[in-house]
């Protein structure tokens, strides 16, 4: 079992959200899972000085939400990002890379992949945190 301090950000509590959570729990990563429903909540969790998430699954609701995440400069927090996009337009996709996601997929794709990648990230980077 790998230690992961994982956060899921999704403003919309929909089917997608449940699917991602179920997959992550299915991979044995549910222990450190926290779900954020607002940008403010996400910011608060990411600004904790200790015990901060080392992995984040981000599901921006729209382009504005994506821009908000980019503006948060999550890269500075050294959390590894998995990004699930609801938009497929090339412009949004190009912007999404500003978050430097370790994995990028789409909301209408196979969300099981998100859980598998999260598990791999937790396995590979389990020794990279010093909390």
């Amino acid at each position, binding site marked *: 079992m790998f230690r992961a301090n994982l956060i899921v950000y999704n403003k919309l509590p929909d089917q997608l959200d449940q699917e991602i959570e179920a997959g992550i729990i299915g991979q044995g990563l549910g222990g450190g899972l926290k779900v954020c429903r607002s940008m403010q909540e996400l910011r608060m969790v990411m600004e904790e000085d200790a015990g901060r998430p080392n992995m984040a699954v981000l599901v921006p609701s729209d382009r504005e939400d994506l821009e908000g995440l980019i503006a948060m400069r999550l890269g500075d927090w050294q959390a590894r990002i998995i990004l699930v996009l609801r938009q497929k337009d090339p412009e949004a996709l190009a912007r999404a890379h500003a978050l430097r996601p370790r994995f990028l997929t789409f909301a209408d794709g196979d969300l099981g*992949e998100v859980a598998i990648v999260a598990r791999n990230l937790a396995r590979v980077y389990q020794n990279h945190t010093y909390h």
Partner: protein
Amino acid sequence: MARILIIDDDQLVCDTLSDLVALKGHEAASARDLGSGLPLARDKAFDVVFLDVRMPDGNGLEAIPLLKALSNSPEIIIITGFGDPDGAELAIKHGAWDYLEKSATAQEINLVLARALQYRQGKQAGQDTASLQLEGLVAKSPQMKASLELIALAARSEAPVLITGETGTGKELVALAIHNNSSRVKGSFVVIDCAALPPTLAESVLFGHVKGAFTGAERARDGLVKQGHGGTIFMDEVGELPENLQRIFLRVLETGRFRPIGMSQELSSDFRLIAATNRDLDQMAAQGHFREDLLFRLRSLSIHLPPLRQRPEDILELTSHHLRKIATRRGQAPLDFSPEFARLLMAYSWPGNVRELIHALERAVAAAGEGSELLPVHLPINIRIFAARSAISREPAAAASPEQPFPTWREAKQDLEAKYLRQALAVSGGNLKKASLLTEISLPRLYELLRKHGLKGQG
């Protein structure tokens, strides 16, 4: 014409190198020891310095930072003894451009010199490291300054780059710096984390697929190689790339063309590749786990990032930099740190490198609460223990005297424990709950320890 300085105590080496250099139309000067060589280097702006390691008045490697610190920062070629791979490794780690064995042929010497001068010419003609956009990268040490020069060189080039270094040394930041300072800055910086991708998914993620290409491919997907068109692809943990994909990716690198799964025709993508790894790819290639031809392509330009323990000059600079960042995030003024705090940071070996330092600082700031200064007690316990153990192991002779017999391990541990508890009480103002949080010792255990040492707190 370039100016070349030779510092070697062997007159024959000085004469031979001077002749070779003169034959190539360059101006040569020589010195037989560091005492005369260093002032000469200061007075005249040399482009390249050939430097011997074993000098009568010191170690040549220790002179590298002094030479690199000169305003013209000459390229340094170390002259090592025959068959001394450790010396060669040390030379590179100390920021030398290259090394030569004393037995090198004239052709080898000319080649190394020509490459050093070519590199220097490119460096001077192009972007200065001072104008680089370097988000999060701190370089005070000669080793990191040498890395910055390579970043500047890489930013001007289109060649693939291989960044190596231990975990936490900042390989991704270096890759990003190269991208941000290159002509591709308006394109995407696409990350491919080879360690995160399950092998069954990797090909589709990299190259994409058409609808119906395989079971479950209900929709077409664009791969990351296509998304990287016009920009930079950063392939992290490249040593984890599955062997079948190494072959395919090599071809993509050579031709700029790729085929999504299930598509009959090829597509093209104009991307620049930067790869990174903390693994020994040479060893992997020797064992048949990594393709040598791919390694050769990846290594058109190489940047090795030294571990933090090998560049102590950067530790306090990084500390100040990240304390400022933490303060900005918290909307507060940056905290000061005590000399003891700095001493512990300098004494620790930082196996997790810069990433570990950042985590330690964040923990320290949290532990300091409303305090205005960071103290050793605010640091994570593993760092304090390391420092305490190092201090004890450094001072056994001082502790052993007829008046004060050398303490047993148990006594030394007790002594350290008592000192540590007294310090924790002082920092927490005697508040036991706060002391418990600071020390990460449970409250009942803290009571027990204080009782054992005859100490008292409040709360």
